[in-house]
């Protein structure tokens, strides 16, 4: 038995209306890879922020290397030997790798030899990176390397990894695990946060499971099954979704030679994308974030129009030049990735939020005038059908939890009875219960003859839903193949296009 490197004792943190962490205690041993396992919203991120000095606990104590530890800010945490790689990277797009790393180091370590030290460290750990590159032009995997290098330069005794694999290709995951094992071997402890059970069993020597902000269990994940871990994490057993029986409907939505330059800084251009979807089919588009998914989504919704109208056809009608309203009128529906601010207006009520999608149909608008009562009934119907937990349709979208809002948004689109539904990251950051409900709703919709496109980073999700899968990498789409004929490895290979960076289209002016 080794003395714990980090000991948390009774940590509690409350926010208005929620207890994020209650009486959380755990020990991390030197050189150990310790998993912190929990669902979205279980309180993992809050706990990490307290350890790293971004938030302060309302109650409880921490000890690091046997000494009291109450960091007032992240600099203090770093000085004590704690490093962190955030889930949403704390990087600055418009700056170079060196600048980004310098910002995370004490001034004394930012001498002129910094670039050299970055190069040396990155070679020795196999984390290849060019220190002079602008971070905005890097792929997600490369950005994670920048964060890891930033931590390692300070020789941490504890490295916190917050959901590190959710944005990586399978190959990149393997490389990351190799790095982490080597760090562990060298004596650095790792606090590994995830909700992915397989990787925890493969990597971690110990696990603490959080649910609803409390510690549910501490265990050795190598001696547990994925199922037992899942049950501890979720707290109930979930009914498995019924798989989709593939139907051979006619082609409904077709995309041909769609090329579209990105309008965002550091965006990815779509390059000759082509696919078609049949009625009753779910087509899965896999890929690491930032490989053209948002651009493709914009092109499919009509938020950005294709250069050639024929690039997108719906039942043989060219729709590439139509805007979102016209496309909705033809029977399309959309669920974009970002819930708050894109798929829903945070400060408007659920009733008002129905109008975003229903503007083109269902009689919510009459000659330009809003029919408030109809809209409210529609919102109530969504809430009832999809079991959205809310105080009522007058509640603002912001006040709903992620899972509930996502159910509301997916429900809004499904109740419009679309012929084609395009969904991006349908369950990103959504709890398991809502995930299961959303998956089932999509399968049911497809069974009724709707053509569905699911864009997702989560391969498990695509394998559970899709009849065929294609991979998007650097703005190019692979040939869709039947899911049954595919393996995770094969898809990982195709996603690997993303391990090398996307070609830089535009450098900042006079950088």
């Amino acid at each position: 038995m080794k003395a714990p490197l980090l000991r948390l004792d009774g940590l509690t943190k409350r926010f208005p209306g929620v207890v994020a962490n209650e009486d959380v205690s755990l020990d991390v041993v030197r050189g150990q890879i310790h998993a912190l396992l929990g669902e979205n919203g279980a309180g993992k991120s809050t706990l990490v922020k307290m350890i790293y000095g971004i938030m302060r606990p309302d109650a409880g104590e921490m000890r690091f290397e046997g000494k009291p530890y109450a960091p007032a800010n992240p600099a203090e945490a770093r000085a004590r030997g704690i490093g962190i790689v955030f889930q949403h990277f704390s990087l600055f797009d418009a700056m170079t790798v060196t600048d980004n790393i310098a910002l995370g180091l004490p001034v004394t370590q930012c001498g002129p030899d910094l670039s050299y030290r970055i190069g040396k460290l990155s070679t020795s750990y196999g984390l290849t990176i060019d220190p002079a590159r602008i971070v905005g032009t890097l792929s997600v995997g490369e950005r994670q390397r920048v964060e890891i290098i930033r931590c390692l330069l300070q020789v941490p005794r504890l490295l916190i990894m917050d959901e590190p694999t959710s944005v990586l290709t399978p190959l990149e995951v393997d490389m990351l695990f190799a790095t982490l094992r080597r760090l562990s071997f060298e004596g650095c402890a790792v606090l590994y946060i995830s909700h992915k059970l397989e990787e925890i069993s493969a990597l971690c020597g110990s696990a603490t499971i959080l649910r609803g902000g409390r510690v549910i269990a501490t265990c050795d994940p190598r001696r547990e099954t994925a199922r037992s871990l899942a049950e501890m994490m979720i707290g109930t057993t979930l009914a498995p979704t019924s798989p989709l029986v593939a139907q051979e409907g006619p082609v409904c939505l077709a995309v041909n030679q769609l090329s579209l330059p990105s309008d965002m800084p550091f965006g990815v251009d779509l390059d000759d994308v082509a696919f078609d979807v049949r009625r009753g089919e779910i087509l899965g588009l896999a890929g690491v974030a930032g490989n053209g998914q948002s651009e493709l989504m914009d092109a499919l919704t009509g938020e950005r129009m294709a250069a050639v109208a024929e690039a997108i056809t719906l039942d043989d009608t060219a729709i590439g030049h139509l805007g979102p309203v016209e496309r909705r009128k033809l029977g399309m529906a959309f669920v974009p990735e970002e819930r708050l601010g894109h798929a829903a207006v945070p400060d408007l009520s659920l009733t008002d939020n129905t109008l975003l999608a229903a503007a083109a149909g269902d009689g919510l608008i009459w000659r330009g005038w809003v029919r408030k009562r109809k809209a409210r009934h529609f919102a109530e119907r969504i809430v009832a059908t999809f079991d959205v937990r809310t105080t009522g349709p007058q509640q603002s979208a912001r006040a709903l939890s992620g899972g509930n809002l996502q159910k509301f948004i997916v429900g809004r689109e499904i109740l419009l009875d679309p012929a084609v539904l395009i969904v991006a990251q349908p369950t990103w950051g959504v709890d398991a219960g809502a995930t299961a409900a959303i998956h089932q709703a999509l399968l049911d919709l497809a069974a009724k003859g709707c053509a569905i496109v699911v864009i997702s980073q989560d391969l498990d999700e695509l394998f559970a839903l899709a009849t065929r899968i294609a991979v998007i990498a650097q703005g190019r789409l692979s040939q869709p193949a039947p899911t049954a004929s595919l393996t995770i490895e094969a898809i990982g290979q195709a996603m690997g296009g993303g391990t090398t960076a996307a070609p830089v289209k535009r450098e900042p002016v006079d950088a």
Partner: protein
Amino acid sequence: MLRLEPRRAPSEAMIYATPFVAVALTLAAGCVLFALLGRDPIQAMYLIFIKPLTTLSGRAELAVKATPLILIATGLAVGFRAGVWNIGAEGQFTVGALTGGSVALAVYPAGGPWLLPLMALAGVIGGMAWAAIPAFLRTRFNANEILVSLMLSYVAVLLLGVLVHGLLRDPQGFNFPESRLFQSSALLPVLIPGTRAHIGAIFALVAVALTQLFMARHISGYQIKVLGLAPKAARFAGFCERRIIWGCFLLSGGLAGLAGLCEAAGPVGQLVPALPVGYGFTAIIVAFLGRLHPLGILAGGLLIGLTYIGGEAAQIALRLPAAAIAIFQGMLLFFLLASDILVRFRPVWRPRPRPTASSGPEPMPATTLAP
């Protein structure tokens, strides 16, 4: 330690309460200001806020001052809700007065019942045309509408100067830089005989009512709100940003132009270089004071109008400097913006987190499940 804690949803109650909080704070600060200037604060407050309301002429003057403020602010507020920052209403006001007034001068001395509607139309079109410039430059060239519309206000005021010095100068005016007095059929009918309260007040009320209806019930009002709150959601829903921007500019420009015409054909009765007195800027305060809400703007316009009239009275009675009222209005906006924090945040009194350092012995080695 007083801390701010975010609310889960904006507080409905606070949205309505904060304007009153701001007014109360401004009154308190105003008392301090007047005391510092060596005037009796109670008397100053009475002169500014109560006395004008006690006489018919005072109330009529209030209508005269509040009319342009309400007209302009109603239009501006619609734009502000969409995130379209037209702050050049002063210029649109000036151009509206110019174009509307020019119609009267062009047909002088002819007149008739057809003249005023024609002038009003010209005023609205003038204001719209001036507002169309920033709208075009923003939608076509992405040029910041705040700076463009503001620069155009300076240009409009200079333009008025140029024209009353030249083209529109009164031929019998001994070279004074002002136009001739409008013919009587070019003057707005007076509502209350013996006062200056004119029919423009009705225009303001109609504008408030229609805008209220559109914002609350019409899809275009909804589109404006969505664009302001979440531009990406507006794109997702297929609302045309370009059209909304144009609509906001044309509406606010048109109403400002109408306000300008009402001023020229109302209390002033001619075109003079001093016609733009800052209503276009003060209306921004009115818009925020009214929570960008037409009915709120009605109340806010009356309150700010009162400070103008009361301020004039106080200037004479207390020899208070004219600029004191401008400061007063500025403070009101500051306090309003400051108290807005209460809508999204809740102030809570919480002791500082206690230090977790302990001087106990080194802890016992803990047991873990790790091998």
